[in-house]
């Protein structure tokens, strides 16, 4: 079982990203569930959404307390929400940031990428799916084509643009990690 936490602020697409990720796992026949940390979310307030993926049936219906992967759409949340401690030691933290933040933890693999800049060059949005591209590059479990398929399942519009953002970020991170 892999447990993933996606952190963003209301309006940045953390919940949508978690749904797409669950769909991407299911594309590959891996069972998945996605659910938000249920709050009275407002635009700008911290939002958490979780994904579980497993080869076996996922019975548990409880929040993820210690994630294998943390995906951070908004870097200002790193200190607001205790993301580092909520990630398993030796787990991965993927952060959308202009600055090198790899010093935030020595116990984790920290991947920093300025997804906003890449998304802007394509259609000004899509930082959330861009980070999913980075996630796919950082794990061997999921293939990029499953992610792009999930994007086309989830979005009624802007499918190509979102897919491009995801693929572009995936390529960059994959090369960096080689």
């Amino acid at each position, binding site marked *: 079982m892999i447990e993933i936490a996606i952190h963003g602020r209301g309006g940045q697409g953390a919940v949508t990203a978690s749904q797409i990720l*669950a769909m991407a796992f299911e594309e590959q026949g891996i069972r*998945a569930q*996605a*659910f938000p940390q*249920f709050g009275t979310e407002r635009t700008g307030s911290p939002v958490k959404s979780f994904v579980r993926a497993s080869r076996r049936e996922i019975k*548990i*219906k*409880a929040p993820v307390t210690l994630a294998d992967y943390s995906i951070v759409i908004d870097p200002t949340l790193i200190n607001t929400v205790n993301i580092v401690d909520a990630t398993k030691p030796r787990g991965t933290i993927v952060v959308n940031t202009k600055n090198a933040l790899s010093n935030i933890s020595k116990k984790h693999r920290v991947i920093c990428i300025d997804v906003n800049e890449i998304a802007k060059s394509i259609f000004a949005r899509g930082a959330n799916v861009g980070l999913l591209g980075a996630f796919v590059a950082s794990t061997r479990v999921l293939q990029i084509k499953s992610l792009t398929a999930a994007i086309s399942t*989830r979005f*009624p519009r802007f499918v190509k643009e979102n897919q491009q953002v995801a693929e572009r970020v995936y390529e960059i991170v994959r090369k960096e990690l080689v």
Partner: protein
Amino acid sequence: MPLFGKFKYGGKNVISGSDAGAIAAKLCRPSVISAYPITPQTIIVERLAEMVNNGEMKAEMVKVESEHSAASVQMGAQATGVRTIGASCSQGLALMNEILHVISGLRLPCVMMVANRALSAPISIWNDHSDTMASRDTGWIQLHCENNQEIFDTVIQAYKIAEDKNVMLPIMPCFDGYILSHLYESVNVATQSQVDNFLPAYKAVHHYLDPKRPITIGSVAPPNCYTEFKFQQQKAMDKALKVIKKVNSEFSKEFGRSYGNGLVEEYKLKNADTVLIGMGSVCGTIKSVVDKHKGVGLLRIKSFRPFPTEDIVRALSNAKRVAVVDKAFSFGNAGPLFTEVKAVSPVKKINGFIMGLGGRSITEKDIEFVIKNAGVEKNFWVNVNE
């Protein structure tokens, strides 16, 4: 289904519990939708409205000004002899209370989804079972679901159970607000023809309102016959026990999925000394913990009304300790599920655990606590800050 870019009938889709309920309702071809939006049930109403708006669903969506009216409209529509769907929770369900009794008393086979949520005050938009436990004595059948697939399947089954000529009672398919209503997971969505095969078109046979054949329903019952009406309602509940089982196995034949015997689900009870009992999504978490233990099992109560006494007694015949998890409380006494199970339990070492009120997470650690303290001479409010 324009929920997303792509959606397919006759296959798997990653959808929310609310989507599952709304799509299942659509496939049952109700003629009238009557519901007032309330968090976290809102998405169900939105989905139904979308499907009516884009012509996918041929039903009349009645806009109402409150839940009391929502239930009244559903009652009135069903009384004309057509299939209906409703949805509510929490304060909304509480506001409907008066009409819920009338619907069951009139023996109208309405189906209304409940996305379980806590009751005020203080305000909580989050999940527990206070709302449906407070509706216990309204005469509605209550079927509690563990996951999104079960929501989809239970809504379809609900019509078949409710409309059975031996039952003719309203049903609430219940599922945990947020925990399931907002959870996305893979659901095998049936095709229209599969559902049509399983669930024939509704034909009201007894009393229904028709201008060509004027009748009055729900008129006064003096003391010489009121008791008989209530006795008949209980007879119907007794018969529902059998019908729920029958529909569960018929559904299994048609769709390849079943939920225990329809009333209860026994999970690893064979060699279990310690048995946990619960309802709804928490049973998923309990199962994942039970999988790590030897000698621990789960008895999931799917049908809270009618209460499956015989099945509970049989399932507990080898148990030594029983722990009942309640997501609601009856003030001045104990958890409602605990009280009822204890009344019929052949096991004397039985205690209750109050958990998950107002959306407090129930973790695997909490379930470990229940297992450790199962059957001791004391009830617990788990994780309460005294």
